[in-house]
């Protein structure tokens, strides 16, 4: 029995969790996903990218706490972002990300049409209870 938060004893006819696992498996075997996964690993293992990312995080932290009276952190963050996006590994990552995103969006459209609810939009984790 699958637990549904906030509801009592619902009846499940077919298990959506199993259907989700099967879909995940099918998607994991696509060339678009494989290319994206390989590019992600390359980015993760790239020392230059990791160094730039660490530098960016320190500027983001400063901005988060409002410590940027002279705009140095903002300027440096913009410069680092441009430098990062200019790297070959990053460009490959972005290109494969675009491809896999187009694939997943097409898949999500089918799920949402069949389900009657927007799947990815509603799956997005939110602590907000702003829908009334």
């Amino acid at each position, binding site marked *: 029995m699958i637990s*549904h*938060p906030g*509801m009592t004893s619902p009846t499940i*006819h077919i298990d959506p969790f199993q259907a989700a696992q099967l879909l*995940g498996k099918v998607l994991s075997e696509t060339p678009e996903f494989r290319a994206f996964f390989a590019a992600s690993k390359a980015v993760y293992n790239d020392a230059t990218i990791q160094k730039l990312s660490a530098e960016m995080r320190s500027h983001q932290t400063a901005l988060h706490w409002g410590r940027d009276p002279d705009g140095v952190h903002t300027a440096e963050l913009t410069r680092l972002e441009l430098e990062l996006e200019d790297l070959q590994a990053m460009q490959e990552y972005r290109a494969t990300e675009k491809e896999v995103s*187009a*694939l997943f969006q097409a898949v*999500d459209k089918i799920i949402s049409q069949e389900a009657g609810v927007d799947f990815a939009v509603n*799956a997005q984790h939110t602590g907000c209870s702003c829908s009334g």
Partner: protein
Amino acid sequence: MELTKEIQTAARRLGQCLRQDDYIRKYLDALEETRTNPEANALETKMYAEYERLIAREQEGEILTYEDTREFFELRQQVQDNPLISRRNRTHRQIRPYVHQIAEEISFVLGVDYTPLAKPH
């Protein structure tokens, strides 16, 4: 984008499972009931129209007073108090963690987060 038969079938199956799920059906029923109820419909339409009107006034540089926004807040209260709208919103809030758990299942198999990649931009 052209999808293979296998992907289409797997995606369709997940969508159908969701539609048949009691939990999702409760939300879909509430959604349909609200959509087809003239009173609830008119109330929401009026509230959104009032909201748009206030936004337009603000964008023109007008500083809105409490009196200007009073009608909107009264409408919003009526919307929140409407039993059909309230049930729809409640069931919508309830399905979100559940749908999130199902999407997590896809992410777990992939090893990357499915949702940000699949969400329409």
